[in-house]
C-alpha cells in the first residue's frame, strides 16, 4: 500500500495539471513540479542538478501547438526549425544542428531521420503531459547525440477513474485541420491511455514579390535593350511552395500494477504521414512498441528492465504506386536496465543498454544494408552533502560495433542553495557517434552525377560543456500590485564542440564530383540564457526568455542553418473566472529572432512574430480555443530555408470536449 501511495503521489506531483481550467493554469505554476531528465530520476525542479526548462501542459495548451516543432519555436529562444532540400526539416538550437540534440519520448529514443534528426511530426502533443529541456551535453546519462541538449517529451498519466476527450481545430494557414481523441481509465490494477490524432494541411504557395509574367516582361525589356527594373529579376527565395501533408498517429499505453512492488508498462504506437510533393508522394510509417517492468523492493531501491522497438520507414509513391527507388527503413531494438538505490539523502543509479540499429536505404550501394550494436554502461551518484550542497557525478562508457568506436563521458554537477538564491555549476561531456548513413552512404544524388560518400573511419563528435547558473524563486507579499510569485534564472555556458561530422569535397569518384563525410575542426559556442517569470495574484502572468549566443572557431554557415546572436520569447497571460460557467485564459505571446551571425543581407535580417490566444472554458469540460497568429502580419521578403513559416496573419479556432467532466 505504501508503495502505491508513493506511486500515486509521484504521479500527482509529476503531473500537476490534468485538464485545463483557469485554476489548473495557476496550479501548474504554483505547485512544485518534478522533473526527471537532468538526473535520470524524479527531482523537484528547484533541486535539479542542471537548469531544466519545463514546458507544462498549460504551456502546451496555450500555444495551440500541433507538434513539437510548433511548440518549441514559441517557447525556446535560440531554437529554430528551417527547411533543407526537399523540405526536410532541420533544427538549430543555440548553435547546434538537429543531430546534436537528442529527442526522447518518455525517455526512449526514436528511429529514423529526416534531414538531421527524427521526424518531428511523429511527436504530436495530444497526450503529452510535459516537456523537459536540458541544454548542454548530457551524454553521460543519455549517450550519443546528447551533445547540445536533450528534449524529453513525457506522456500524461491520468489518475481519474476515466477520461475521454475529443478535439478539433482549424487553422487558416494551409487550411489545416487537426482532430484528436483520447481515452483513459484506471480500474483496479490497470491503467490505460489511448490517443489518436489526425492532421491534414494543404499545400501553401508562398507569395513571390513578382509574378513570372512580370519577370518575363522585365527580361524582354532587357533583351530589347530597353530600361528595365533589375530588382524584379532578383529572387533569393529557396522555397516557393510548402508541400501539403496528412498525418495519423495512434498510441496506447497499458500499465498493470501486479502488486505493491511490481509494475509492468506496455506500449505501442503507429504513425503514418504522407507528404504530397510536386511530382510524387512520400509515405512515412513509424511503428513503436515496448515493455517495461519495474520492481521496487521499497522506496529506496528499485530495478527497471525494458525492451523498446522503433521502426521508421519511408517510400516514394507515384500515382498510387510504390516506386521502390526511395525505400528507407531504420529499426532499433533497445534493451535497458536501471538500478536505483537510495542511501538516506543520497542515491546511486547504475544502468546499462544494448541497442541494435539497422538501416536499409536507397542512399547505400544497391542491395546493401548495415547494422550496428551499441553497448553502454553508466553510473551516477547523487550526493547531498548538506541541506544546501548537492553534488551529482555521472560516468558512462559506450561502444559502437560498426566503427569499433568507444566513448567515455562524464558529468559533474554542483548545486548550492543559499537563502536568497540557488547556484549551479556543471561540467559535462557529450558525443555523437557517426551514424550508419554517415559511414556507408553511397548515393548518386538524384542521378545528377554528384556522389555523396560515407566514411567508415569517422570519429565520434565530442563536446565539453561548462555552465554556471543562478536562480531565485520567491513570493512577494503586501507590496500592492507586485504581489505574487516570481522566478529568475541566469545561465552562462560554453560548449566546446570538436570533430564535427560534415561533408567536404571528395574529389572525383568514378568520374563524378563527390562529397565525403569527414571530421572537421570544431567550434566553441558561448551563450547566456536568461528567463524571468512572474505570476501576479490578480491573475496576470509574464514569462520572458532571452538567449545570447556566439560561435567562434571553425564556423560554417550553411543555407539551412543560420545561428542568431539574439533571440527572445515572451508571453503575457491573464486568467479569470467570470462565472461558474465561463473562465478565460488569454495570452499574448511572441518570438523574436535577431540577425543571422552569417551577416547575409539578401534575406530578412531578423523577425518578430506575435500571437494572441484566447481559451474560453465554457461550462464544464468544454474549451473553445481561438488564436490569431502573426498578429502584425509579418511577411518575409523572400522565403529562404530559415524563414519563418508564415504568409502573414492567420487564425485558428478549436473545440475540445472533456466528456468525463460534462
Amino acid at each position, binding site marked *: 500500500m505504501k508503495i502505491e501511495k508513493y506511486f500515486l503521489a509521484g504521479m500527482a506531483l509529476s503531473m500537476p495539471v490534468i485538464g485545463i481550467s483557469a485554476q489548473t493554469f495557476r496550479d501548474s505554476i504554483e505547485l512544485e513540479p518534478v522533473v526527471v531528465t537532468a538526473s535520470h530520476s524524479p527531482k523537484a525542479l528547484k533541486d535539479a542538478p542542471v537548469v531544466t526548462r519545463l514546458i507544462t501542459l498549460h504551456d502546451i495548451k496555450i500555444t495551440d501547438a500541433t507538434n513539437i516543432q510548433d511548440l518549441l519555436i514559441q517557447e525556446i529562444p535560440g531554437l529554430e526549425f528551417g527547411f533543407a*532540400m*526537399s523540405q526536410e526539416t532541420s533544427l538549430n538550437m543555440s548553435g547546434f544542428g538537429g543531430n546534436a540534440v537528442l529527442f526522447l519520448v518518455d525517455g526512449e529514443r526514436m528511429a529514423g531521420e529526416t534531414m538531421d534528426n527524427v521526424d518531428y511530426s511523429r511527436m504530436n502533443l495530444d497526450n503529452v503531459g510535459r516537456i523537459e529541456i536540458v541544454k548542454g551535453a548530457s551524454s553521460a546519462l543519455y549517450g550519443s547525440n546528447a551533445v547540445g541538449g536533450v528534449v524529453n517529451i513525457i506522456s500524461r498519466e491520468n489518475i481519474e477513474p476515466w477520461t475521454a476527450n475529443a478535439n478539433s481545430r*482549424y487553422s*487558416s494557414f494551409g*487550411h489545416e485541420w487537426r482532430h484528436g481523441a483520447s481515452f483513459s481509465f484506471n480500474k483496479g490494477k490497470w491503467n490505460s491511455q489511448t490517443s489518436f490524432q489526425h492532421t491534414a494541411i494543404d499545400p501553401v504557395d508562398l507569395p513571390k514579390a513578382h509574378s*513570372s*509574367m512580370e*519577370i*518575363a*516582361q522585365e*527580361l*524582354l525589356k*532587357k*533583351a*530589347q535593350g530597353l530600361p528595365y527594373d533589375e530588382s524584379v529579376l532578383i*529572387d533569393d*527565395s*529557396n*522555397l*516557393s511552395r510548402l508541400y501539403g501533408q496528412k498525418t495519423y498517429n495512434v498510441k496506447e499505453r497499458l500499465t498493470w500494477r501486479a502488486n505493491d512492488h511490481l509494475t509492468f508498462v506496455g506500449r505501442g504506437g503507429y504513425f503514418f504521414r504522407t507528404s504530397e*510533393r*510536386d*511530382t*510524387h508522394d512520400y509515405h512515412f510509417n513509424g511503428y513503436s512498441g515496448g515493455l517495461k517492468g519495474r520492481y521496487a523492493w521499497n522506496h529506496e531501491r528499485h530495478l527497471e528492465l525494458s525492451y523498446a522497438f522503433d521502426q521508421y520507414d519511408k517510400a*516514394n509513391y*507515384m500515382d498510387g504506386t510504390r*516506386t521502390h*527507388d*526511395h525505400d528507407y527503413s531504420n529499426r532499433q531494438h533497445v534493451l535497458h536496465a536501471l538500478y536505483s538505490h537510495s542511501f538516506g539523502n543520497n542515491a546511486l543509479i547504475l544502468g546499462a543498454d544494448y541497442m541494435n540499429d539497422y538501416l536499409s536505404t536507397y542512399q547505400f550501394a544497391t542491395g546493401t544494408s548495415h547494422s550496428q550494436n551499441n553497448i553502454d554502461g553508466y553510473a551516477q551518484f547523487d550526493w547531498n552533502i548538506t541541506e544546501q550542497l548537492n553534488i551529482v557525478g555521472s560516468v558512462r562508457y559506450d561502444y559502437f560495433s560498426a566503427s569499433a568506436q568507444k566513448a567515455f563521458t562524464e558529468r559533474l554537477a554542483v548545486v548550492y542553495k543559499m537563502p536568497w538564491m540557488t547556484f549551479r555549476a556543471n561540467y559535462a561531456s557529450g558525443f555523437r557517434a557517426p551514424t550508419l548513413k554517415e559511414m556507408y552512404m553511397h548515393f548518386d544524388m*538524384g*542521378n*545528377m*552525377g554528384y556522389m555523396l560518400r560515407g566514411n567508415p573511419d569517422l570519429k565520434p563528435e565530442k563536446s565539453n560543456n561548462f555552465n554556471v547558473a543562478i536562480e531565485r524563486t520567491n513570493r512577494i507579499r503586501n507590496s500592492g500590485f507586485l504581489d505574487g510569485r516570481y522566478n529568475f534564472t541566469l545561465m552562462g555556458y560554453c560548449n566546446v564542440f570538436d570533430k564535427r561530422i560534415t561533408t567536404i569535397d571528395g574529389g572525383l569518384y568514378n568520374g563524378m564530383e563527390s562529397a565525403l563525410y569527414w571530421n572537421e575542426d570544431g567550434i566553441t559556442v558561448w551563450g547566456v540564457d536568461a528567463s524571468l517569470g512572474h505570476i501576479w495574484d490578480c491573475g496576470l502572468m509574464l514569462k520572458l526568455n532571452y538567449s545570447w549566443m556566439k560561435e567562434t572557431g571553425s564556423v560554417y554557415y550553411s543555407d539551412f542553418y543560420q545561428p542568431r546572436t539574439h533571440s527572445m520569447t515572451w508571453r503575457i497571460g491573464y486568467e479569470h473566472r467570470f462565472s461558474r460557467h465561463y473562465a478565460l485564459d488569454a495570452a499574448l505571446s511572441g518570438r523574436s529572432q535577431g540577425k543571422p551571425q552569417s551577416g547575409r543581407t539578401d534575406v530578412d535580417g531578423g523577425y518578430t512574430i506575435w500571437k494572441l490566444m484566447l481559451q474560453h472554458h*465554457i*461550462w464544464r469540460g*468544454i474549451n*473553445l480555443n481561438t488564436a490569431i497568429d502573426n498578429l502584425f502580419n509579418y511577411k518575409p521578403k523572400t522565403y529562404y530555408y530559415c524563414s519563418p513559416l508564415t504568409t502573414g496573419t492567420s*487564425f485558428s*479556432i478549436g*473545440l475540445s470536449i472533456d466528456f468525463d467532466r*460534462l
Partner: protein
Amino acid sequence: MKTMKIKSFMTMMVAAVALVMGVSSCGSDDDEPEVAVAAEVAGSYEGNEIVMVDNDESSNETKTYVLTKVTDASIDMNIPEIGMGMMTIPALTVNGIGLKKEGNTIAGRLATYNGKVTNAKGEEKAYTVSDVNILFGDKNVVVTFSLKYGTMPFIMATTFTGTKKIEN
C-alpha cells in the same frame, strides 16, 4: 436541456468555421478578338536557358527553342534537350499555346500540357509542362515554364531568353 445546449453550441461552431473558410470569386477572362500573331512569333530562337531546381540554378546554357505556327493565334513550342549524359531529358513539345497581342508585345499562356516522349534508352516517359508564359517583342522572346519529367522528384523551373534567328 443539456443536449440542446451542446447542439446549439455545435451549430454556432459550424457556422463560425463556415464563416472563416472563405469564399472564392469567379471571373471570366476578357474575350479579345483573335489577331493573326502566330506568324510573327514563329521561328527559331537562340539564347540563354536557365533551369532552376528548388530555386537553385541547375543549368545555364545556350539553347535553341523553336516556335511553330499552328493557327493564326496559336503555336507549338519545341523545348531542346536538357542536361547531359544519363541525366538527359530529350527534346519535348508543347502544343497549342494561344497568343494575344498586348500593346507592343505578343503574349502566350498555357496552364498545363501533358505529353509523352521516348528517351535515348527507348523508354517512354510522361511529362507535364505547366505555367507556360511566352512574351515576344521586337524579335526577342522570353519563355518561362515549369517541367515535371518522368519520376524525377523535383520540378524544373525554366527561363529562356532568346533572339530570333534570321532565316537564310
